[in-house]
C-alpha cells in the first residue's frame, strides 16, 4: 500500500509533529506511515481522511502486491 500523506501534509503545510497532535497519535506513527513501514488501522486512516477532508482512497492507494 502506498500513501500520499507526505504530499497532503505539504499541501496543508504542517509538520509531522503538528499532524500527530491533531490526530492524537505519536510522531513515530506518522513518520512510519509516510515511510511505508506501517499500515495504519482503519480508525487512524479515517481520522486522517477527515482531517485532510479527502476520501481514504485518495490518501491510501492499494498496490498490486497487496
Amino acid at each position, binding site marked *: 500500500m502506498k500513501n500520499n500523506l507526505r504530499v497532503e501534509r505539504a499541501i496543508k503545510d504542517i*509538520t*509531522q509533529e503538528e499532524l500527530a497532535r491533531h490526530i*492524537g*497519535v*505519536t*510522531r*513515530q*506513527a506518522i*513518520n*512510519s506511515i509516510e515511510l511505508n513501514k*506501517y499500515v*495504519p*488501522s482503519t*480508525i*487512524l486512516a479515517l481520522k486522517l481522511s477527515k482531517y485532510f477532508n479527502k476520501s481514504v482512497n485518495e490518501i491510501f492507494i492499494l498496490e498490486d502486491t497487496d
Partner: protein
Amino acid sequence: MKTKVLFPNCFKKVGWIIFIPSVIIGILTLLNVIQFKNFKEVTVFAIFSDPHYFQKYEWFCFIKNNISDEILCIMNIIGAILVAFSKEKHEDEYIAKVRLESLVWAIYINFGILLFCTIFVYGTFFLNIMMISMFSVLIIFIIRFNFILYKLKKSLGNEK
C-alpha cells in the same frame, strides 16, 4: 487506541525503582559477590515443601525459610512487569505494534537461548540457567522495546 491490558504511565517509574536494584542485587548474588546466608529465617506458609529434594515432603505446612531470594524474585518480577507493561506517555497503535513485535522477539530469543543451553549445558549449572530464564523473557523484552523506541526517536530528529 484504548487498551485495558496496560498499567497507567505513572507505574513505569515505580517499576524502574523496584526493577533496577533487584537486577543489580540479583546479579551480585548469582556471582556470589554478596550472600544472604545470615538473612533472618522467617516462618512461612508452604503449599508444598521438600527441603531435601523429594526424600521427604510436606503439603500445606508452616516452615522456616530464608526469604531473601523470595523477596528478590518478587521484586524482580513485579518491577519488570510494571516497566514492561505500563503505557508510554503517548501510547498509540504504532507503539502497540512495536510492543507486540518486541514481545514475540523476546520469546524467540529467550527460548532460543534456552534450547541452546538445554543441548550444550549439563549438570547443576543448568539449574542456574533455568532460574535466569524465569526473568530473562521480560528483561529481553524491555531491552528490545526500549531500544526500538530510542531508535525511532533518534531517526525522527533528522526529519521534518
